[in-house]
């Protein structure tokens, strides 16, 4: 026989009535204090989950409700009804500082390990599973968007294009499993990039900047590295996962969102991007070795690019840079 006090709301009006609730041996919950006594079998009463020290409610089958702060009595009632095991477990987790501290530690580990290994691993797995047909569509789509926005048609002479395409074709024969394809554009300064479908885009400005074909080929080898490692797909997957995770963590702190989701995501994406660049550099290094082309050509074109685009950002900004410091990259190729 347990008795406790609660506030009763009939659900028809906003009037409140103080009542005394009693559970009898037969499992019936009696409500005393109303105009006429009311009783419900405990099995039909829904007991709201416990949440911190907040008021809990008992919902009766007729839509009436009791609100109560007597947490000991409510827990006894819940145990008598044999329900609420899972929500009691969550409440336990939420009510002890040691679990909270444990959660912070676990969350930091999951966050650090996840961003260092988990996300790149997952992205690689998914990228490898993307069917070629989809990668083809994605590549075509992206190039189409670039063509409509920033890229202009190449004005390079046909003979020069033909020369480079032939040389690229010879390179591509080393990687028969990759659907490689070279194309020329203009309008974004000296640059080259790779798309998911195996298209490598090189700009007129880069071809003009290079002092010899080996320099262009070294850059193309780096881009083939991006295709080989499926970097563009992985980057898309990695950055969307990071944004998703950070927004989950930060939740709806609306007045803070722009800066607080923006900056960590940019930082994380830049880090993944630098890792990809290093991977592509390694790939280029191997290729140059294979074909006995001196590493110096890649170092030379990097130096020329650095000069043309205004140099590296200062050291404090390197964390937000999409490429590793050019001096480090050059150093790798001059060793």
């Amino acid at each position, binding site marked *: 026989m347990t008795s406790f006090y609660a506030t009763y709301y009939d659900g028809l009006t906003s009037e409140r009535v103080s009542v005394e609730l009693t559970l009898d041996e037969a499992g019936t919950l009696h409500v005393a204090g109303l105009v006429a006594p009311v009783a419900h079998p405990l099995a039909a009463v829904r007991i709201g989950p416990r949440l911190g020290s907040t008021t809990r409610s008992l919902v009766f089958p007729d839509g009436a409700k009791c609100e109560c702060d007597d947490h000991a009595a409510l827990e006894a009632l819940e145990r008598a009804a044999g329900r609420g095991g899972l929500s009691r477990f969550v409440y336990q987790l*939420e009510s002890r500082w040691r679990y909270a501290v444990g959660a912070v530690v676990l*969350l930091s580990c999951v966050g650090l390990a996840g961003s260092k290994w988990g996300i790149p691993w997952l992205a690689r797995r998914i990228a490898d599973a993307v069917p070629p047909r989809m990668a083809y569509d994605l590549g075509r789509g992206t190039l189409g968007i670039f063509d409509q926005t920033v890229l202009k048609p190449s004005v390079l002479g046909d003979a020069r294009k033909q020369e480079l395409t032939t040389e690229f074709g010879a390179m591509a024969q080393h990687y028969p499993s990759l659907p490689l394809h070279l194309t020329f554009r203009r309008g974004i300064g000296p640059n080259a990039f790779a798309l998911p479908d195996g298209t490598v885009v090189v700009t007129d400005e880069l071809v003009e900047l290079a002092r010899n074909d080996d320099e262009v080929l070294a850059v193309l080898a780096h881009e083939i590295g991006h295709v080989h490692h499926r970097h563009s797909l992985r980057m898309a997957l990695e950055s969307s996962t990071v944004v998703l995770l950070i927004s989950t963590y930060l939740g709806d702190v*609306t007045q803070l969102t722009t800066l607080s989701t923006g900056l960590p995501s940019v930082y994380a994406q830049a880090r993944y991007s630098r890792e990809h660049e290093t991977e592509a550099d390694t790939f280029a290094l191997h290729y140059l070795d294979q074909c006995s082309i001196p590493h110096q050509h890649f170092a030379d074109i990097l130096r020329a690019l650095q000069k043309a685009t205004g140099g590296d950002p200062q050291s404090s900004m390197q964390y937000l840079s999409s490429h590793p410091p050019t001096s480090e990259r050059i150093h790798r190729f001059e060793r």
Partner: protein
Amino acid sequence: MQAHTPGDDPTESASERELPFRFTGTAREYFRIWIVNTLLTIVTLGLYSAWAKVRSKQYFYRNTWLDGTSFEYTADPIKVLKGRILAAAALGLLFGSQHYSMPLYFCVLALLVLASPWIFVKALAFNARNSAYRNIRFAFTGRVGEAAGMYFGMLVFQLVTCGLAYPYAQWRLTSFAVWRHWFGDQQFRWTSKAGDYYRAYLLVVLMALPGYVLFIAVIFASAKDPGGPAALQRRMLPMLGVFYLYLLVPGAFLRARAANLLWGGLHMGEHHFTSNQRGFDLLKLYFVNLVAVVVSLGLLIPWAKIRLANYRASCLTLHSHGALHVEKLLDGEANALGEGLSDLGDFDVGIGV
């Protein structure tokens, strides 16, 4: 149904009472709920987020008190989860199509824009239906057609007036949202005027203007400097940071004004609300919250949210004339008003606060 009129009892109708809202949540308690929510959400790959959302919202509702009773959030996490899966699918489609083809992307985008009045109405209805006080539910009875007409009408109006109609559109939208809300059998009324919105926005534009002018001037000045794009980028980043901090000022004043106009114009039966948030107070809150959240790498987010809820509640008062007596909206009436359709999920739609 015999509707209760608050003038029935002569002893009650004469008495005006000031009933302040009180917030009793604590950062210590909410921190533990928040960290467990976050961990379980990540461990379950997002599935727990629906339960996390409901628990978090219920914590804030249950700790908001008016006249000796706290509010209650009664949403079923499963329904919230369904809504989230739907939203995730829509967003996934949008971002996926972005990489595929432009026409497809714009088709998906257009569909989402067309669906936004529907989302707006469903979200308000879901939220109202699952909000209760003294076991009487709130309700939102706006219709999708009505919302769509107003929403797209306002969009065109803003385009035609080059954005000058923006405050008016905000006022119209808020007005629609407020007038279609019920607490039990009592419909809310709203007395804030479009002119009040224009005054609020004028103040904010005047506050933001010097910042924008200075920012643009500095960009032009530094664009002339030699050093190429990398050097320009280098100088831009700290400036963007300063500019962002500066924008907290008009942001805080706008939010304070908008909250005061929303709550301060609210009437229900013989009762009405007043809200006295101050831009300067809110600015201090935002600034300290921002610093705390950044320095603690997010761990002080619960503390920041509790502080904000505390301030908002402390500024809100219900002036009641007579007893706070409300009756349940009859089920028949409720269904006729479209309440039965509102079981989709929670989307947070802001109406200016």
